[in-house]
């Protein structure tokens, strides 16, 4: 059985999504990077260290949040996380302090003294993230961190990951089978299928703000479009929405002037403005045809 087949890629610092259907080889790739599984052929490096020959160098650098449950039910989160900090070689007193800090960071307060057997899925996922962070790794490897969470929990987990990655300079590799949820937080995406690499892209510019304003109005859209065109703007109508092209280099003042013209056009056509926002590119657009 081979889970990965002639896969070759390099992942840059920042938050990177690892996307693929169930069984695509995401977990196998993650385990090879962690040194839990030895590749039958080929090699891999984490921050310049070979995963087979220099495993000991990688141990302190990497934090791992597995896909599966991994909590001891009759231990409290505080005990568990500080125990694992000590397993990373942090002295006992510092380990307790670190555990309290990261548990607070992931949003676990008084609950951290209760046995983990009674935790909800959302709390369990937070503890799993906390233990991956407790020894202050340089790279976080998160395997399906949003698994089993409800939409609100998903959002919280994703923004927690984003905060951790962006504000604290920790590189994150996060796997998921949902492309959509990663686009919000990732700077790059690796798409694999059947153990092979489909695409690997930097997203920064691609899903950043585009040169298009998205406007929604309430009322006579055709008249509104006509008014905008008359004032010299390039306008595309997309069903109930109006897309207004911006010039390549649009500064703040130019944008403000644009908003004024939209407002004036809306007033003159007597339509209500519902929404004006800069359109963002979507990951799905990028990978259309790939999945």
């Amino acid at each position, binding site marked *: 059985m081979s889970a990965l087949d002639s896969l070759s890629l390099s992942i840059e610092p920042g938050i990177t999504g690892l996307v693929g259907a169930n069984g695509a080889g995401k977990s196998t790739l993650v385990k090879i990077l962690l*040194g839990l599984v030895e590749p039958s052929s080929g090699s891999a490096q984490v921050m310049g260290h070979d995963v087979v020959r220099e495993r000991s160098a990688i141990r302190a650098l990497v934090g791992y949040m597995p896909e599966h449950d991994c909590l001891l039910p009759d231990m409290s989160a505080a005990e568990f996380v500080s125990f694992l900090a000590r397993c990373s*070689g942090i002295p*006992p007193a510092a380990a307790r302090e670190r555990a309290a800090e990261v548990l607070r960071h992931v949003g676990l307060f008084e609950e951290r003294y209760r046995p983990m057997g009674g935790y909800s899925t959302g709390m369990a996922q937070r503890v799993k993230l906390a233990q991956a962070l407790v020894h202050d790794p340089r790279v976080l490897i998160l395997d399906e961190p949003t698994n089993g969470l409800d939409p609100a929990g998903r959002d919280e987990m994703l923004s927690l990951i984003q905060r951790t990655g962006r504000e604290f300079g920790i590189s994150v590799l996060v796997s998921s089978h949902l492309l959509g949820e990663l686009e919000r937080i990732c700077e790059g995406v690796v798409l694999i299928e059947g153990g092979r690499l489909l695409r690997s892209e930097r997203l920064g510019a691609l899903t950043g703000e585009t040169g298009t304003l998205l406007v929604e109005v309430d009322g006579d859209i055709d008249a509104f479009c006509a008014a905008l065109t008359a004032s010299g703007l390039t306008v595309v109508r997309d069903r109930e929405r109006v897309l207004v092209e911006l010039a390549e280099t649009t500064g703040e003042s130019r944008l403000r002037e644009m908003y004024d013209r939209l407002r004036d056009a809306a007033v003159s056509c007597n339509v209500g403005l519902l929404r004006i926002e800069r359109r963002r590119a979507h990951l799905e657009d990028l990978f259309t045809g790939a999945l």
Partner: protein
Amino acid sequence: MVPPDSETTIHDLGYRRYDGERIGARGALRALYWQGVRALCGVGRPAKAKAVPVFVVVVTMLPALAAVVVSGKSGGVIPIRYANIFTSQLLLFVLFVAAQAPEILSRDQQHRVLPLMLTRELTHGRYALARWGALYSVMFVVCLAPLLLLYFGEIGVATDPATTFAKMGKKIGPVLMQALLTAGVFTGLGSALAAFTARRAYATASIFGVFIVLKAVSVGLGDLSGSQGQAGELLDLLGSLRTMALILFDEKTRAMELTPPASVWVYVATMLVTSVIGALMLRWRIRRVAT
């Protein structure tokens, strides 16, 4: 008026880096060892987890205490028979290891905590060492405690403690030897078998099972050869531990006077070899646990 740069602002410290000391594998080993010792004794665990350790310690100490009291009341006329008392407690030691070894070894697999430890400073080998060490230390104390009680009891109740103490110097060797080897055998087999399954009930049953099966095989071999073949007899580990105690404490039975057993060193070697085989099996198995 509050000045804009007021000292009273509350900052969310959030995540902080850790630049403190890291003590590496040494700290990790110590953390895992002590976590193991605590789990084996049921410290910091619910009352249910304390039942077996407390029961075994109380029930093994009571007969020893009774023997000391009886011997004392009779003014030393009724001698304390170490081997008899120790032998009657062997099944309780089996109960202890069968109930508690899975507590540290099967549980880590059942709740899938191993990948979290193995991606930290703990290699497979260090994990096996710390688990073996914890079980051995606790088993050694459990096996030694009743013998020590007898030993100090015998000195205490003697009419002339000073001369008895001088005479007793010879006896501390057998006490330590018996406890060291008994703990080695139970730890070796118990830890190896517990590491083979994530289900605690299976682990407990297999540990009880192996001693019963070895006894049955030993009897079977004896029947086949017509006489009690000595090699087959050694396979009955509980029986051999008893014989070793009888020789070590010089409390030979009538039967043993008629057909003298093998030299005590044969028994010592058997127990040593069994201990080492068990420990190696544990290490071999831990290397192959699926993570």
